[in-house]
């Protein structure tokens, strides 16, 4: 049995240390070591985006990153988005637009949408669809998800300019 690796990292703004096996993916570490089960496993090979996290500002599938690789890096997961008394505007927009049905893909979509709006605060519909094409949803047909991201972009832009 392989010995474990000691990892120091930042997750959702907080310093975290953990032990993991070298073969464990970041997704496994998040879910099974740190109990951050908001990141979901839909395929475990980078095709569905349900495990999307932001790693040093870049959107990644956490199932394709090893846990040991995040030493010294910064990870944002769905659990880090809301404030104690307030949801993130993207989360609000998903609720207002009924942009989820079963909800299993929702954390991944919200994280991916945040990564998009961090880079491009006013995306076109096509840019949203292009960016989110790495996240699969089987329930909604994407219509209300795209609208939620459009709404969130508008709300976040107006908050910035206000």
């Amino acid at each position, binding site marked *: 049995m392989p010995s474990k690796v000691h990892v120091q990292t930042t997750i959702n703004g907080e310093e975290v240390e953990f032990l993991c096996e070298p073969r464990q993916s970041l997704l496994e570490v998040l879910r099974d070591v740190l109990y951050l089960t908001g990141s979901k496993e839909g*395929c*475990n090979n980078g095709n569905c985006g349900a495990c999307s996290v932001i790693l040093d500002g870049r959107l990644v599938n956490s199932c394709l990153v090893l846990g040991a690789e995040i030493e010294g890096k910064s990870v944002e997961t769905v659990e880090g988005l809301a404030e104690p008394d307030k949801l993130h505007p993207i989360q609000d927009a998903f609720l207002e637009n009924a942009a989820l049905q079963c909800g299993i893909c929702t954390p991944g979509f919200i994280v991916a949408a945040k990564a998009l709006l961090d880079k491009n605060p006013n995306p076109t519909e096509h840019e949203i669809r292009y960016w989110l*094409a790495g996240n699969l949803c089987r329930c909604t047909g994407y219509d209300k998800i795209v609208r939620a991201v459009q709404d969130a972009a508008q709300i976040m832009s107006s908050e910035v300019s206000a």
Partner: protein
Amino acid sequence: MADKKEYKVIGTRPIRHDGVDKVTGRALYGADFQIVGLLHGRMLRSPHAHARIKSIDTSRAEAYPGVKAVVTAKDFPGAGDAIVDLGEGAVSLKHLQDNVLASNKALYKGHQVAAVAAIDPHTAEEALELIDVDYEVLPPVINVRNAMKEDAPLLHEDLRTDEMGEKSEKPSNIASHFQHKKGDLDKGFAEADVVIEHEFTTATVHQGYIEPHNATALYNPDGQLTIWCSTQGAFTVRAQVSEILQMPVSKVKVVPMEIGGGFGGKIQVYIKPVAAMLSMKTGKPVKVLMSRADVFEGTGPTPGSYVRVKIGATKEGRITAAEGYLAYEAGAYPGSPVGAGAMCIWSCYNIENALVDGYDVVVNKPKTSAYRAPGATNAAFAVETVIDEICEKIGMDPLEFRILNSAKEGDTRVDGPVFPRIGFAETVEAAKEHPHYSTSLDGKYRGRGVASGFWPNFGMKSSVAINVTSDGTINLVEGSTDIGGTRASIAMQAAEVLGISAESVTPIVADTNSVGYTDVTGGSRTTFATGYAAYEAAQDVKRQMIERAAKLWEVDESEVEFADGVFRCTNGKEEEIDFKGLAGQLDETGGPVVGRGTADPTGAGPSIGTHVVDVEVDPETGKVQILRYTATQDAGKAIHPSYVEGQIQGGAVQGIGWALNEEYIYNEKGEMTNASFLDYRIPTCLDLPMIDAVIVEVPNPGHPYGVRGVGETPIVAPPAAIANAIYRAIGVRMRELPMSPGRILKATGKI
């Protein structure tokens, strides 16, 4: 035509009750469940599509460090030839057990043959490689028409065809043949000016929910088994597990976790009994998870099929006769949805002379499961494209044709039932009046198609309990797992009765020990039937609250009326109190109020929809792009319109995937070669435009608020609508699904 009744809560769009948990990642799905001392189980699956299992040697796996238990079919309690009824028709217990763990034969690649429980998932996976299975590989048969041939390899040596009620002498892969008939077919075809007949095939496709199957089981020495899992129905899991493991239902408790999509595919059990067996052997809780490949290769797809359709019509556009032949792949064990396909095939239309033959055929593929309007889409692809061809021949608008032939209240379906009030013609009218249909579509290789889809909907059993809280809210305990917003749609019906807000209801999806029996979230029944039970439970609360008001005011109950959320005294006393005020006085008037409601309603009421689609075909690559999509559907009464739209949009997009990309691709050894989301391509948001969902409301007389189930119907029309659009775009009639780039290029002669 629209429902003119005034409602306060119904028809509004509140935030769903489980919404915050689901957007923050806090909602706990089956795989998220944790418990102290947990072991991890993994399944060994057959690498062969068809093989006799000569022996299984688990000794090396059992000796591997970290392994706690190994199970095979030998660990099942004896099955004999029992036939069990799980509420959805009788099934053979032997088949049920064999599908969970193969005993003497593996019948598809991915068939579960053994399982390991170990200290972590990786150790369990490593140990699987140490299980030695001696297979005698047999020739597979993976296509329905080949499987029906006299000399086809037999999956089950003891399977005899049920030929219209008579058992055949010889074993066969054809499990059953049935027929529905109405009128005089010869006479009907003789009256026709146009008769068109074609053959169609559709590929095996998967439900494609994003969450893989999961189960955690804990067996206690007192014989009590608990299973935490994602499922469409905790009670059907209880029933199947108790049958497979021969335990009393009272010893099995199923705790439904949140569920990440089902579409019919999370009704049948696969790993749940195995997790239980591993827990029985180890005395520890055991969690079993499937990989994505396991899901594709080992869980219920919907059938590949061969369909033949012949329709006759007059030049005025009246259908005079219709004949259908449906041969559906059941997968490894009998039980394809060909029966449902036969219910649906002619049901959009009022046809005097009609017939349908149905064949249920076993093949070396995973046993099929329900998938959103199971069986209906395969048949509609054929019927709705042949109708399009008739319309072209007689020069009639395809929507006018549908209005002229539409089934209406009082008409008899070919399979027997007489229609109650339905809204088919209204959905066609809505499509016709939609700006989409009158907007001109210009450009080369572009075309517009229409098609309609039917699903009968189901009722079945539901239970609801309501506890009134002293602050004027209610807790609503229900047994229906919430896959698409049904906590909201059920809560809103109770809120409407009691004159309180949707937010004043706290819906709770309870385990099998904590709520009355409730059938699966399936058959488009949940908002209809569990909503009906919630309505009854709220009526019960209302009756009890009237008693309390009467007590408070020292008047007779008959002197209290309840309207608009306020109890009033009608005997001249100036007394009134709202629901919240009265809820605050329960202690003074007799203690807690608990309402109960059960339902087994028969008036589910069909839902029918009509779709309009514009496509552009790339003649070089064969790729079909969806340019615009409009779907109309009769929802009876939309309780929460956003989630009704969501069902229509999501169903339409699953239908688009079925139409254009999705299929199980097999090699000559009968192995699925594309068991990943990269190669089994479901639609992404980049493939699609917005989906315009148009809700038509023709109230269902079988429900107090007029609800019709809406979940399944929207998947039925898309493949035919898109095929008809492709024909308008490039002049080629596609009769094979999916209409993938390769098939388009073949059809146009490019390759």
